């Protein structure tokens, strides 16, 4: 077990290092923006004193590495700084009395919860469905079922998310009003209401993610079924059920978990477009909106959240593969 513990801690260390490097990339990328922000934000009412005051308050006058470390330390305490959009800059122009800085964390937290909810609903449908279809397609490969599954999943992964989204809106919201086409959920809704409003975006994501997962599962199982030890099990006269459950499945765990984790990681990018189409109040939509109005701290924070989720899921896939490989778990 010592061997495994070492490999896993190395991977974890690598993950942390990657996060660190990613934060540097994000920070430097964002700070390559041109001109003087304070100037741009104030626009017309930009007097030199107001500009200097804003720069001081937002900490834009410190050297870049100081700013980076301040930000990093803040991040680790879940303080992502202040949002430019929510900040009330009017005070600097002398029109109102109190300064009000909305924190980025306040903006992101509820949105993050929403996105997690969407991802959870999607995963709950997609994972069992794709595993089932993938295993069946592998067992009955080249049959009509397999061919149909192959063509439909190929079509599904080739379609952009917004195509699938609008087709579903057409069929399930406009023509047959089963679900609402706008998914504006908010706190205070009960679970059933939330679920109903979330179904369409979840279905859209499901269609795309299931396709990927099903194909990968099918490929992994076909690969497995070609192994000599499966042939050996058949030659020992074991029932097909026993062969699948006792011989194939234990070895299929590693590739399947890998597939699931990788696809959940892929889900993160898909969330963005879907949230925009359905106006779902999640991190993706916040990100796109902030990009458009150039709300730097929010953009930074969203990127970081996405990257963290992506890296963690990839790390999870990695660790699970290691744990389920008996050759690594039990050394010679």
């Amino acid at each position: 077990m010592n061997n495994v513990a070492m490999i896993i801690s190395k991977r974890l260390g690598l993950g942390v290092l990657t996060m660190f490097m990613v934060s540097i990339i994000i920070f430097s990328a964002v700070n390559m923006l041109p001109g003087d922000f304070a100037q741009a934000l104030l626009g017309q009412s930009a007097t030199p004193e107001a500009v200097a005051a804003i720069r001081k308050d937002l900490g834009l006058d410190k050297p870049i590495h100081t700013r980076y470390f301040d930000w990093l330390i803040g991040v680790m305490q879940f303080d992502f700084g202040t949002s430019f959009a929510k900040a009330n800059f009017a005070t600097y122009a002398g029109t109102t009395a109190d300064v009000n800085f909305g924190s980025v964390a306040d903006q992101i937290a509820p949105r993050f919860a929403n996105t997690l909810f969407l991802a959870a609903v999607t995963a709950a449908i997609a994972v069992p469905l794709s595993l089932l279809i993938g295993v069946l397609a592998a067992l009955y490969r080249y049959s009509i079922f397999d061919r149909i599954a192959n063509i439909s999943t190929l079509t599904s992964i080739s379609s952009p998310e917004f195509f699938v989204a609008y087709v579903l809106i057409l069929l399930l919201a406009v023509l047959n009003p089963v679900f609402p086409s706008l998914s504006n959920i908010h706190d205070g809704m009960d679970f059933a209401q939330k679920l109903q409003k979330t179904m369409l975006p979840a279905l859209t994501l499901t269609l795309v993610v299931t396709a990927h997962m099903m194909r990968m599962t099918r490929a992994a199982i076909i690969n497995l079924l070609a192994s000599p030890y499966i042939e050996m099990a058949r030659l020992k006269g074991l029932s097909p059920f026993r062969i699948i459950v006792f011989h194939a499945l234990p070895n299929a765990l590693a590739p399947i978990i890998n597939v699931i984790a990788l696809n959940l990681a892929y889900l993160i990018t898909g969330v963005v477009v879907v949230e925009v189409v359905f106006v779902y109040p999640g991190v993706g939509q916040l990100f796109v909106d902030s990009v458009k109005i150039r709300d730097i701290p929010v953009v930074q924070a969203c990127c970081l959240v996405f990257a963290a989720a992506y890296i963690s899921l990839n790390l999870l896939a990695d660790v699970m593969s290691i744990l389920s490989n008996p050759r690594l778990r039990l050394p010679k």
Partner: protein
Amino acid sequence: MSATEPLVKISNLEIDGIADETRTRIINNVSLELNRGEVMGLIGESGAGKSTLGLAAMGFTRDGCEIVGGNIMFDGIDLVTATPDVKRQLLGKRIAYVAQSAAASFNPAHKIINQHAEAPLCHGVSSRTEAEADAIDLYERLRLPNPDEIGFRYPHQVSGGQLQRAMTAMAMSCRPDLIIFDEPTTALDVTTQIEVLVAIREIVEQFQTAAIYITHDLAVVAQMADRVKVLLRGDEVEEADTRTMLDAPREDYTKSLWAVRSFQRPQKPLAKKGAVPVISLRNVTAAYGSNDPVVRDVSFDIHEGRTVAVVGESGSGKSTTARCITGLLPPMTGEIAFQNQVLPADYRKRSVHQLRQVQMIYQMADTALNPRKRIGEIIGRPVEFYLGLKGAEKRRRVEELLELIEMDPKEYINRLPSELSGGQKQRIGIARALAAEPKFIICDEVTSALDQLVAEGILKLLTRLQEEMKLSYMLITHDLSTVRAIADEVVVMKDGLIVEAGPKDEMFTPPHHAYTDLLLSSVPEMNPDWLDELLAQRGAENLGDAAVSKM
């Protein structure tokens, strides 16, 4: 089911193989009869259909294979028309299978003993405790180390030869009437092989099991089988009991198989004292990275027109020595000299002239030739690179080389490697080496992947070329019959050290180093009593890897 009825009766069997849309006949009108307790050897080159026939005796066909004619009867049951349920009841219980690679045939996720007990449990032959106790008993009979606990390990924790014996035990778990052994020792070292052979023979005799033993090694089949059947590309060639087959084969093809081992070139006299060796290794020690040295203090000379065979099992350091000579692995200490001039250790620092003198021929013809280049280009490039010939002159030289390796230039110069057979590809590899007009060629297991007949052709070609062009060869091999065929001097390596070195004739007559002795004695001979005599001489404890570990 009277006592005189054969256990297995295959009549006029025809099996087709289907790949995409093409059909090929794999088994063509083959018949086979096997009585209880009898061992039949199935001999043939690769592609003869031996595996397919062995599996057919179980009523099993691999994906892509289809039975299109004939009958398979096992103890009165027709296996061609039987339902899947009936067949499943036979498999594992009354007919068992031992595959070629034990490492691939054991499920890496479960312990060995669990996989052993699976068949008896599922077929209702015994309870779990009974099955486990029986397993331990079988392991003991097969002389596995630590029989009480070896079963409780996972497959990757057990060595190849031991795993093969564990698979034999697993096949025995339901005490079947018939076991199919599909090339069980082909992938093993010679010293490991002999232990497995002894184990298989003993267990088959103890339990009076009938067996079909599939192999391409004639000497092995001589030890194991009562009767031998020869297959060639799906056709039956000949069948007879072992002694008759060995002493008086009828068909030409059978006779040619037997003849391979008799090719022998007389040994050349030793080089004159003081002659400058073509290649000289002096105290070479080399390692990969910062690990333990794989080659330790190795020194030997290779003289002009001579063949030095470097023999050893896997891990002995033979291939690493070759890499040092070519400059791919600079040694930690020691030097390599060409005609008494020290060569730079790293190939990148050698001059083109120096690189030219040392050429290599590889084992696997599939990876040795660039699959996207035509034969003319493959041979032509060194001609252009080293000799500076271009255009018509280059083409003429390429044609000369093709004729030298006995292949018609007009037919082959524009072919791709995928269109050639294994032996032909190996000849192209030789031509490519010759194109540089070197003094020294390293032959790295050049015949190991080839069938015996084809291998003999290559060896004869190499001998002829050596005579005509005064080439020096370093022959890396683990096959002692190849050594006997064309070597002048022999160097025996074990664990990176030279255990013994000297002229070939001396090596093959005792006295020798204990390891050489073991190596030589572990190679099966074409004498059906060879294994019995060896056992009588040394006792079962003193064979193979067990004996090696005692050294």
